[in-house]
């Protein structure tokens, strides 16, 4: 392995790998470092795989439109199947409260050219066969969103990067980022030393720890969410379904599930009280709670077989938006962190923006939107995103 690079990306996950790929495609000699043994062993493998552009925040809309473009064309351009399923997203609505929120967002979403519509109860039953009809008001449906296999996608991007001479160092922990005269010089790991004028922090749940090495206070705190997957069943459900209502058991904020391209039902909920920290071991609480919520909404799921559960980390920022920026105080230091649990869907889009920022000095999105993902924004002032 050589020691001199144009750029070093720290983190070979959902964000780091596409960032490295796009930098490599721009002709840079890139090294990716990760303390895990292979790509995607942080939170990538915990991701559900849903990819939607139909957010409420302009930056996320922009980023995920780009991600969708990359994911949906991947097989054609690179040859690897990444499990892309254009099944859309559906937010069924049973209460006035969610109806109001979702309907108010439609205008913003459409102004960005997103294909999203309001459907009545019958229209929702069409896309979510077997959904509880009692009290169903309607909901949104965005057919251009979809799902991708996080596992296949990261493997494909890793291979594409490697084929283009991007280098990877696994099982290496970064112990120091050397800076001289406010300029990045390189990286020290527990094994070796590398020099590069550019270092990208794409360390996901561990972004804050990495930032500390250079005295940066990156406001990213991980909390954990549990998820599960069923044995594959014959395809019957196209969209990823999100139920925004809090759960009657008082422990869940919302929950969501989808049938992936392999036929498995993959599911997750957002806990009402956050589990802060980096523990990724499953709890006994998750299955009974999520099972009731899912069966209440879609009774036929009671007969699916649960295959596996796990717990992944959401690297949260105070305002729920990611950070994609260059560090003003240290030339050559870049941050692409704080994905707040959406690192997989944002990965390619935000990676491309980061690569553009590094190469051309500007991101792909316009400056005004870009300022909302700045490292220097007021993380505590802005209103929280309406739809997360």
């Amino acid at each position, binding site marked *: 392995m050589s020691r001199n690079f144009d750029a070093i990306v720290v983190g070979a996950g959902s964000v780091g790998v596409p960032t490295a790929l796009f930098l490599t495609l721009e002709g840079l000699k890139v090294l990716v470092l990760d303390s*895990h*043994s*292979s*790509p*995607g*062993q942080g939170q990538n*493998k915990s991701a559900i795989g849903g990819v939607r552009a139909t957010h409420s925040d302009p930056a996320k809309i922009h980023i995920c439109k780009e991600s969708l473009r990359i994911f949906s064309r991947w097989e054609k351009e690179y040859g690897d199947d990444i499990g892309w399923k254009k099944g859309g997203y559906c937010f069924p609505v049973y209460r006035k409260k969610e109806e109001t929120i979702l309907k108010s967002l439609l205008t913003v979403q459409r102004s960005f050219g997103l294909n999203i519509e309001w459907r009545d109860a019958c229209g929702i039953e069409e896309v979510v*066969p*077997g959904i*509880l009809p009692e009290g169903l008001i309607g909901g949104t449906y965005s057919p251009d969103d979809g799902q991708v296999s996080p*596992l*296949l996608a*990261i*493997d494909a991007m890793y291979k594409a990067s490697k084929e283009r001479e991007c280098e990877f160092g*696994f099982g290496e922990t970064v112990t120091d980022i050397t800076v001289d005269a406010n300029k990045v010089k390189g990286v020290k790991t527990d094994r070796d030393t590398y020099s590069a004028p550019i270092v990208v922090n794409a360390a996901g749940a561990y972004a804050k720890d990495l930032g500390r090495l250079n005295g940066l206070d990156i406001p990213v705190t991980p909390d954990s969410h549990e998820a599960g997957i*069923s*044995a*594959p*069943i*014959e395809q*019957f459900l196209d969209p990823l379904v999100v139920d925004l209502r809090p759960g009657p058991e008082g422990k869940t904020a919302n929950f969501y599930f989808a049938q992936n391209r*392999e*036929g498995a039902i993959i599911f997750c909920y957002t806990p009402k009280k956050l589990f802060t920290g980096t*523990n990724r*071991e*499953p*709890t*006994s*609480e998750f*299955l*009974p709670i999520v*099972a*009731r919520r*899912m*069966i*209440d909404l879609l*009774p*036929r*799921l*009671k*007969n*699916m*077989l*649960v*295959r*596996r*559960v*796990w717990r992944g980390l959401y690297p949260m920022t105070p305002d729920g938006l990611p950070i994609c920026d260059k560090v003003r105080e240290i030339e050559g230091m870049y941050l692409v962190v704080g994905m707040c649990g959406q690192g997989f869907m944002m990965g390619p889009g935000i990676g491309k923006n980061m690569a553009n920022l590094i190469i051309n000095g500007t991101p792909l999105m316009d400056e005004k939107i870009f300022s909302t993902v700045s490292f220097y924004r007021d993380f505590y002032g802005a209103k929280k995103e309406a739809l997360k």
Partner: protein
Amino acid sequence: MGRILKHPILTASKRRDITFTFNGKKLLAKEGEVISSALFAHGITVFGHHHDGSPQGIFCANGQCSHCMVIANGMAVKACMTEVIEGMLVKSLEGFPQIPHDDTPSKFSKVRTIKTPVLIVGGGPAGLSAAIEIAKFGVRGILVDDKNTLGGKLSLQTHNFFGSKGDCFAGTRGIDIGTLLTKELHSHGGELIEVWLSSSAIGVFNDRKVGIVKKGEYVLVKPEVLLVATGAREKSLAFAGSDLPGIYGAGAFQTLVNRDLIHPSEKLFICGGGNVGLISGYHALQAGIDVVGLVEALPECGGYRVHLDKLKRLGVPIYTSHTVLKADGLERIRSITICKIDKNFKPVQGTEKAFKVDTLLIAVGLSPLQEIYIKAKEYGMKVFTAGDAEVIAEASAAMFSGRIRGREIVRALGKTSFIPKEWSGLAETLRKGPGREEVKTPHILSGSVYPLIRCTQEIPCDPCRKVCPIQEIKMGAGDMRNVPSFEGESCLGCGQCVLSCPGLAIVLVDERYDQNRERARLTLPVEFTDEEIETGAEVATVGIEGEIVGKGRIIAYRNAPSQDRRRLMLLEVPFDERLDISGIKRKEAAEPEEASTLTGKEEVIICRCERVSKSEIVPLIRAGYRDVNQIKAATRAGMGACGGRTCTELILGLFREEGVDTSEVTLPVDRPPYTEITLGTFAGIKEK
């Protein structure tokens, strides 16, 4: 194919017949029988097809894989774990199952959390023994097992056990040991130990609770101390065609034959010469199944010599330094090709031999089932492990480790318990595999009667010494692993040693039979339903290797009350041959057939659940992949129902084949549940 109606050891079931249908055809099953056995009883061995079109049948018959999935009354279930019920509509599973479109809302009951001082997972020899001990000390606990009877794999073992007669039932049949231990548990712990049968422990969670599906109800158990006595799983082997129905584990075979009295095969081949493979061969012969041969990759079989000798003298060809090259067949195995391997385990070209078989047993070793133990430890629980889950050994060793753990658990709960000093030594001795060979010169009492002991290998076993009424069978100083010998100046000729030897390795020679020293009378043990060999019949006699010695005549059979289901055969033989005979010839060795290539399939499946082949994984290893999780992400190997429990070892084998040191390889992450359970069960909907 069909049911075993007559068996030398087991009694055919008197259970009621019930009806069910398979793919619309009406069939009979025995009440309480699992679907897989009912289907096998009718010769149905293909239970469905993977979504890639490959046929699937049973593989583990122990609820750990999911190759036997069928649709029963609309639900995808494991055929080996689901009892047939009257009128059940069973269909083969073709591709992905549908979930029933039942859209009626459900009512949920609360998922209970039960606290207990001790939770024992696994009711086999180790778990049962531990439960007995904790009950003796007045400690309460819960014992769970996923089968509907206690005893674990003891319930499959029809043969007499080795080990120490005084300490762990040596000389008693495994099936009876299970019953004895269960009785002992009831007498000591009737009220103290709650026994949950048909209850699977599906995982342990970070909050130190164990998830258990108790007869269809999901409960969480929070124990003060956990004992994991979950036993072992059978290792797998990958070769071209190894995924065909009809190729399954030796444990699966014993389940079919010895538990459910199914006759699953006419022509059987065995891969693996350890105790499991050798014993399975003997069980097959007892069930009237033709054992075509046995291959062992090493130059010597690893199992007990006495087990090997039994097969040899029963005419089973043993091919050492051989392996199975491939299996052929379209919907199930029709033939196998074996070949010689060199000292690096590489096939030697030109040594291929093919055999027509309908079943191949894989008996290439066991791996401890440790997932729950490892996780519980990681989560900081007070946890112990015993039996095969701790270290693979004989059931006698499992009983001892269970007893020791039981008393250690009592201590861990703050009570005093006494652990006899000699226990750990005994447990250690019982754990040991076969030791060195020692052929002793027979001690002949000219003109008299005396035993010939053909036990020439150190194994932990002592019944012959214990039963000799005049105590003339000695084992020297040291432990029970020493080779026994008869050293007396007289012998009563009572035949107790012949009856008690678990290895059936003792023959009584009676020189008093003929004063002219032209003939002698031998007393041999028999465990076959032998109506076809009548008294007075002339038979060919065989030596210890199965080689023909000469001719003999059956004089009589003697039933012995002291040893159930083993009889003594009295055989008249020429005097000069009396020391060379160890049995009578029962079958001709199968001749190899023309090598057939019915499928021509060269694909070697590594992950059976997701059907990932060797040719997909090897290029990744060559490209530098060193993390099994990464291979999993790229190929889906290990993402199936069994959670990589079958293929992980095979993948590590591929790394070794490619010259990679497996200490550099990252192992897959382990996550619950360990058995697939319906979402409704987790929600608190009780299954019918």
